[in-house]
């Protein structure tokens, strides 16, 4: 074999090895261990603190046992059985969870409005949902067929929730309550609702009857994804939940990237309900800042009420006011909506300058951010940015509307001064 032949063979080997390496690295998306590790699956047993519960967690637990040291910062959710230590029992429990066996699992949820370690019977095979945001998450992760009862208020969005309404039963007139008797007739043992203590105040009655009340944070960009992934796991719809999380992650990443072009950030205030102006702990505060504005609210309570004739709001001369209202996917009387909501804010600078906007809040929080970003920076995001992202969401995740609902034609995402007389 001459020297040239040896060089050629070596070159081929090097190329083959490099090629194999490239293939291995780029094909990593197929295996959970190479995907993002944002620690959003809040179920105990998720030792690797990522978005998945799989054999990696079993291995991680075994490593902890063999090394005898448990790094609680790296593996805060390792203690699957919540006995305070990592033992073979945790390994066994996670193995059974990976196999989808029934058991009681622990997860990071909410109790009395505060974060708490909660337990629930796994898997959740069906449920009652109370509250619009949790119901939207369930639909987004493909669990609508598991909803046997719903509490979506006196006039739920019959377009968006058409499948839930058709297949389930109304369990109360209020989004905050579930009727015990109707619940007991539905053959389910789980209620999924919002984290706030205002929802399902009679939780103890359900708990006494052996039911689980799963409380999730559903209206904050990060927490809502964590809730989606956790619910996806608990309801054994991991794949669709992961797909939804990826869609939201990609959308936020795109917004973030585009926001790099912004030279000077605009200022904003957010409003929910008829007159609740969001403070620093409000979900809408978070959404407006993610959309690239500087929210100038400086109070730590969730909201402050702005009553007619009050002076305090004038101390916050924001360029934009984003007023989120529950408008739904159906037809809207734009003029009436504008008048009834905007009247109160007509003396603010934002309103006078044409920068008071009513945002349709009946959409996942990530889409709200997309619409807001388009409002704040139309030159960067371009007209229709929110609608485009929204159409993608409808087609990908809403079985009942996919291919039938044209967002730009049928959905009123934002109402501005130019839309009304």
């Amino acid at each position, binding site marked *: 074999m001459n020297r040239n032949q040896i060089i050629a063979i070596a070159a081929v080997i090097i190329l083959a090895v490099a090629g194999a390496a490239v293939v291995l690295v780029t094909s990593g998306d197929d295996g959970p261990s190479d995907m993002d590790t944002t620690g959003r699956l809040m179920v105990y047993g998720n030792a690797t603190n990522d978005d998945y519960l799989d054999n990696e967690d079993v291995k991680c637990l075994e490593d902890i046992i063999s090394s005898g040291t448990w790094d609680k910062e790296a593996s805060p959710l390792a203690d699957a059985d919540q006995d305070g230590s990592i033992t073979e029992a945790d390994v066994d429990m996670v193995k059974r969870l990976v196999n989808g066996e029934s058991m009681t699992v622990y997860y990071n949820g909410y109790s009395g409005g505060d974060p708490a370690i909660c337990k629930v019977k796994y898997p959740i095979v069906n449920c009652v949902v109370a509250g619009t945001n949790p119901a939207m998450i369930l639909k987004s992760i493909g669990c609508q067929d598991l909803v046997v009862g719903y509490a979506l*208020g*006196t006039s739920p969005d019959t377009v968006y929730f058409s499948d839930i309404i058709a297949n389930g039963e109304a369990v109360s*007139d*209020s989004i*905050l309550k579930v009727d015990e008797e109707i619940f007991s007739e539905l053959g389910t043992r789980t209620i999924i609702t919002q984290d706030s203590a*205002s929802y399902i105040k009679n939780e103890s009655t359900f708990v006494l009857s052996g039911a689980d009340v799963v409380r999730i944070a559903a209206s904050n960009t990060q927490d809502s994804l964590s809730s989606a992934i956790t619910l996806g796991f608990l309801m054994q719809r991991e794949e669709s939940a992961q797909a939804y999380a990826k869609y939201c992650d990609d959308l936020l990443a795109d917004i973030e990237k585009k926001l790099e072009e912004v030279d000077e950030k605009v200022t904003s205030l957010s409003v929910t*309900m*008829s*007159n609740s102006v969001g403070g620093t702990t409000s979900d809408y505060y978070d959404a407006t800042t993610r959309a690239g504005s500087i929210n100038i609210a400086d*109070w730590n*309570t969730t909201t*402050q*009420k*702005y*009553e*007619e*004739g*009050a*002076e*305090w709001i*004038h*101390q916050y*001369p924001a360029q934009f006011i984003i007023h989120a209202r529950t408008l739904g996917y159906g037809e809207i009387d734009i003029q009436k909506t504008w*008048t*009834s909501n905007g*009247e109160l804010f007509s*003396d603010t*600078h934002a309103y006078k300058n044409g920068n008071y906007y009513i945002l349709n809040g009946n959409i996942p929080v990530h889409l709200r951010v997309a619409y807001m970003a388009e409002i704040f920076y139309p030159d960067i995001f371009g007209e229709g940015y929110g609608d485009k992202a929204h159409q993608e969401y409808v087609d990908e995740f809403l079985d009942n509307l996919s291919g039938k609902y044209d967002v730009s034609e049928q959905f009123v995402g934002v109402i501005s001064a130019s839309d009304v007389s």
Partner: protein
Amino acid sequence: MADRVKDRSDMRLVEYSEIRFKYGLQVHKKVLFTVLCLALAVVGVGVTLSVGKFDIGFLESYIIIWNHLMGVEPTTLMGETKDFIVWDLRLPRAIMALFVGAALAVGGVVMQGVMRNPLADPYTLGVSSAASLGATLCIVLGFSLVPGLTKSAGTMVNAFIFSMIPIVAITLITRFKKTTPTMMILSGIAIMYVFSATTQLIMLYADPDNLADAYSWSVGTLGKSSWENLPVVIAVTVVGMALVSMMGKQLNILSAGDKISTTLGVDTGRCRVLLMLLVSITTATVVSFTGTIGFVGLVAPHVVRFFIGSDNRYVIPASACLGALLLVLADCVAKEAGATGLPVGVITALIGGPLFIALLIRQRRKVWN
């Protein structure tokens, strides 16, 4: 003999002039009290212009008003904001406080006199609960008696029209059946319960957003004051108070009881209904713009009687001035309280209640009747 008669006559003259002097002193005292209350109320308005969550100095407020009157336009964003706050928010609100306080206090005097009951106030006939129902219907169910109005205007119109229902009902009852003050009070309470129950029923099914709005309306606030709605309140209040003042003598006689009134030639039934109508229309107008502001109508007349006695010819104007003063002061506190201010109805009850009890405890002489 003639000297003795002359002496006696002189003595009578001296006594008469002494009585006249004393009476004059008492009248002066009453007038002085009224003028003092009025002066303090005006000073209160001056103070309240610089009170609020938006930081504007005392002198600065007056400079802003002066500039506004002189047509000097603000040149900066901050200047525009301050001009808006002083001229469009604080000034109409202060004037509104003056007239609403006066109207409620006079309403209290009349109702207490007509009903011969110290617990009566302008809302005794069920005006406030009826107005609340009207407002709640518009806020929660979007039902406006006059179609095509905005939510805010619809709420106002509903509140006014509904608050007339108990007045009409009681007037009709008195046409067909001779009624006593006690019966009127009891009718008012019955009407109040019916309206309150209906309001609560609607609120049970209201979403949290509307529920908060309806509740907020019922507490009573001066925050909705504006230059646009001031003329109506001022006109109705001034006319109402003038007519009531003209009937001060009849009210004195009515307060003495039906038998004495009839003996003195007063048509008690007609007089009572007329006074009640005047007060109720004035109160209904005020309530439709501000919601139910409690306690002023109850407390102000009692405080006035404590200082100047029970002659309604003087109690009416004095109560008007004191009511105005109380509401202006309460609104100063309301604007500063909490993170965003509080409805003035909360303050009048919180401060007025204990003050009233203290006054009753300190009261040495019986001024009622």
